């Protein structure tokens, strides 16, 4: 296998890892990017040269050790190389979410004290220029894609390509090359390697500073854990600013020396996935769910023969697939039936999804539905769960091959020290553990226990087999008036496992009973409407349709039945629910950028609906002016019918799946 660390020479920084790969596997592909309809490939040797050119250009711009360099944009090779280039010269790269609105971005850029910004394109440049008066430290703004920027003459705005040619010219003279070599050698493992801003689910985003040696140590452990090599390939489509992208693609890629393929655009990622056929893959449960929904919708439209084949072999997969994947003993006839299914259904299906070559796939971020998880496992996708945090540099727990289940997230990852505090909070020490929050020592202290464990803020417990089970955010777990435990996310996740439900918000802390506000999934409910001759003109109209309410009511009832079967949760059944007249949206501040529900915010905005839920009304209306994050104002208006749900009697003993 041979990672760069084995090739002699120090490899305690990413710049040194890159130099090692250029020497050890210079001809192997390192990056791909689809541009003008063609996949362009760069080898490790080329990437090293390109990165040096950026680094030398940044030196010429006066970017010094310890300064912050911001990166704003999507998955573009040059943006990744800019990260390494900054690391080469001891500056601290800080990637930011490309879809952040100007004001949000300005706050974070200001906090990061960035002096140089690398932006992807005109869209990002426009955003930055619109708030430039709030960013006095910014000396230079570099851009990767020049389109539309020809007429801009703002001071300090320069094409990344121009910076690179300046860098190349300087490197050609020798002195600059020697200087850059010296800078790479001077890099220490204890240097701050990257700063990743948290998504801000619970309050303001914080800049998590990670050191080079810890990042590399964590990535090395997991590269060995999943036996990743330089023959592996990933599609780098996750947000650059997210710890998952920086870990799974960048850090593991630079440790193992595998190839990162960047999609043509965010819209083409699904197609690019098929073309690249990655061997190592990550996607949040939401993405797997959307894919499955698409498969199911397509199968509804398929011919009778195909439908029969699909149903028949999916039954075979359901019965035997996971057992075969987990290496259990199964009868020969089952193996033959499964083998036939592989030929007829599973392999073509995986191919259509772009999953044909995947050896290891992870999902995390949210709980994943048992059926959804089983579907992918049963068709032979090695899908596993991990539990991670930015502060850990991702991995806290991870499931090993062949020890996989849907309702837990695995035992501690290699070299991670994990414990459950007396109040139920999960706490850890990990190899990749963060150095601190940038400019916020008091917050850093708050996040750590006196003996140096990181507090995750999640409540959970260990299952008998040693796998960790996460119930909810520790802060969100509440109690009903009668003392019944109320874990909103636990209930919401059960609701969201139904393809017709996109989002749900459960309420109940300090109340007499539990209620829920539900968002329908337009794709699947819309498809259902089409099939059943239900006409609708808008999301709001569909959401309020009596037959849609009936459908959701059966889902709520199923959730209640499942809750009734769990001794801890039986008292937290949903008594009343409504369907929200509007889709919850990150642009409106209702979800975080990582699509997590912002509970308190929603409780405030939808207060009239919540009053209706607890006031016994048959319907409730909302009419409010909302201010979008970019300052524009919009109007939110709608009426929701409120439905009473029937509680199920508390089950004795029996546990539902």
């Amino acid at each position: 296998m041979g990672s760069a660390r084995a090739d002699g020479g120090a490899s305690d920084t990413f710049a040194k890892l890159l130099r090692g790969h250029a020497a050890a596997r210079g001809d192997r592909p390192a990056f791909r990017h689809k541009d003008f309809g063609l996949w362009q490939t760069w080898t490790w040797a080329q990437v090293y040269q390109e990165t040096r050119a950026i680094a030398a250009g940044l030196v010429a711009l006066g970017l010094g050790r310890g300064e912050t360099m911001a990166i704003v944009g999507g998955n573009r090779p040059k943006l990744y190389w800019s990260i390494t280039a900054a690391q080469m010269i001891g500056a601290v790269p800080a990637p930011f979410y490309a879809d952040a609105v100007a004001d949000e971005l300005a706050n974070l850029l200001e906090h990061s004290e960035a002096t140089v910004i690398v932006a992807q394109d005109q869209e990002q440049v426009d955003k930055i220029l619109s708030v430039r008066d709030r960013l006095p430290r910014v000396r230079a703004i570099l851009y990767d894609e020049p389109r539309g920027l020809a007429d801009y003459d703002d001071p300090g705005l320069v094409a990344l390509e121009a910076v690179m040619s300046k860098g190349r010219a300087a490197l050609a003279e020798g002195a600059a090359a020697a200087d850059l070599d010296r800078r790479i050698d001077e890099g220490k493992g204890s240097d701050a390697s990257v700063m990743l801003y948290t998504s801000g689910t619970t309050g303001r985003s914080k800049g998590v500073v990670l050191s080079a040696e810890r990042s590399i140590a964590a990535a090395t452990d997991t590269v060995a854990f999943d036996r990743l090599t330089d023959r592996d390939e990933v599609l780098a489509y996750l947000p650059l600013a997210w710890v998952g992208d920086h870990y799974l693609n960048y850090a593991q890629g630079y440790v193992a020396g595998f190839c990162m393929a960047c999609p043509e655009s965010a819209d083409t990622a699904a197609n690019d996935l098929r073309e690249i056929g990655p061997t190592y893959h990550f996607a949040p449960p939401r993405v797997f769910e959307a894919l499955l929904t698409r498969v199911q919708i397509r199968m509804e439209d398929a011919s009778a023969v195909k439908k029969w084949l699909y149903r028949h072999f999916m039954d075979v997969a359901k019965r035997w697939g996971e057992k075969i994947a987990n290496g259990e003993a199964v009868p020969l006839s089952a193996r033959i039936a499964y083998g036939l299914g592989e030929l007829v259904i599973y392999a073509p299906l995986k191919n259509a999804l772009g999953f044909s070559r995947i050896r290891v796939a992870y999902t995390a971020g949210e709980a994943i539905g048992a059926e959804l998880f089983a579907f992918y496992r049963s068709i032979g996708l090695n899908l596993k769960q991990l539990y991670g945090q930015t502060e850990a540099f991702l991995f806290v727990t991870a499931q090993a091959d062949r020890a996989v289940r849907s309702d837990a997230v695995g035992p501690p990852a290699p070299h991670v020290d994990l414990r459950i505090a007396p109040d139920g909070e999960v706490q850890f020490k990990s190899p990749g553990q963060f150095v601190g929050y940038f400019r916020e020592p008091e917050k850093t202290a708050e996040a750590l226990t006196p003996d140096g464990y990181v507090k995750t803020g999640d409540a959970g417990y260990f299952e008998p087999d040693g796998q960790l089970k996460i119930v909810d955010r520790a802060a969100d777990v509440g109690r009903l008036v009668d003392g019944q435990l109320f874990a909103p996310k636990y209930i919401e996740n059960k609701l969201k496992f139904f393809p017709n439900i996109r989002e749900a918000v459960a309420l109940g802390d300090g109340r007499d009973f539990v209620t829920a506000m539900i968002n329908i999934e337009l794709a699947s409910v819309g498809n259902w409407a089409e099939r059943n001759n239900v006409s609708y003109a808008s999301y709001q109209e569909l959401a309020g349709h009596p037959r849609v309410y009936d459908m959701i009511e059966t889902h709520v009832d199923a959730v209640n039945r499942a809750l009734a079967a769990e001794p801890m949760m039986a008292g937290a059944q949903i008594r009343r629910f409504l369907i929200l007249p509007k889709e919850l949206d990150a642009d409106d501040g209702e979800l975080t950028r990582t699509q997590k529900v912002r509970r308190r915010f929603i409780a405030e905005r939808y207060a009239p609906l919540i009053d209706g839920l607890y006031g016994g009304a048959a319907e409730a209306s909302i009419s409010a002016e909302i201010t979008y994050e970019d300052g524009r104002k919009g109007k939110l208006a709608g009426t929701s019918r409120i439905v009473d749900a029937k509680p199920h009697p508390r089950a004795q003993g029996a546990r539902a799946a």
Partner: protein
Amino acid sequence: MTGASDEILLDVENVSLSFGGVRAITDVSFDIRRGEIRAIIGPNGAGKTSMLNVINGFYHPQEGRITYRGRTRARMKPHEAARQGVARTFQNVALFKGMTTLDNIMTGRSLRMKRGLFWQALRHGPALAEEIEHRRVCEEIIDFLEIEHIRRTPVGALPYGLQKRVELGRALAMEPELLLLDEPMAGMNLEEKEDMSRFIVEAKLQRGMTVALIEHDIGVVMDLSDRVLVLEYGRRIADDVPDVVKADPKVIDAYLGVGH
């Protein structure tokens, strides 16, 4: 707006057009300068589309002269206009619905293909090299119009706003000197209009194209255009920069009715 030169690309002098007894255009004169965005506006039936059809040779005016690139022409057919660097899009999208986005845009290159059908069918040697070059041009346009995700999608399956974009792509593939756009933003939502405006301005600034467009959204026209020609009942009632046209009482009358 900047970018326009003083060179007159197209000069229309005293053009009149009638169908039987119906006068569509009466004695209209105006010019289009190289590198400008020229809007033609007016109420329904004012003769805007007729004027575009006169420019690209689809209609032949009974009176008047049209001088394009310094040459006064008598009669010209649309395909001759195309050969001379005039491309257009239509009020109602006119694409090959069963073909993909890429193939539709490729059709815009057909006039520039030098090899005969025989060699193209063989897809060998010079014909292949030529096809690769045309494909490169089309891919640049796909990149420019941000339609990578629908490259392989049959255009019949696309929403209307995207079809309009593909149609613009096909016109751009001709690498025209003069681009005629017939209501490029009809039926679009605000975001689609903003995108389309951006593409039109970029086509002018980066690709050095001269654009003449008909549009109903007056706000868009005034933002986008260098000069605006206003027609009413086939006659010219105003012709100036947007700010002047906006304030012209005759224009206000035409749009709001006399006695507003």
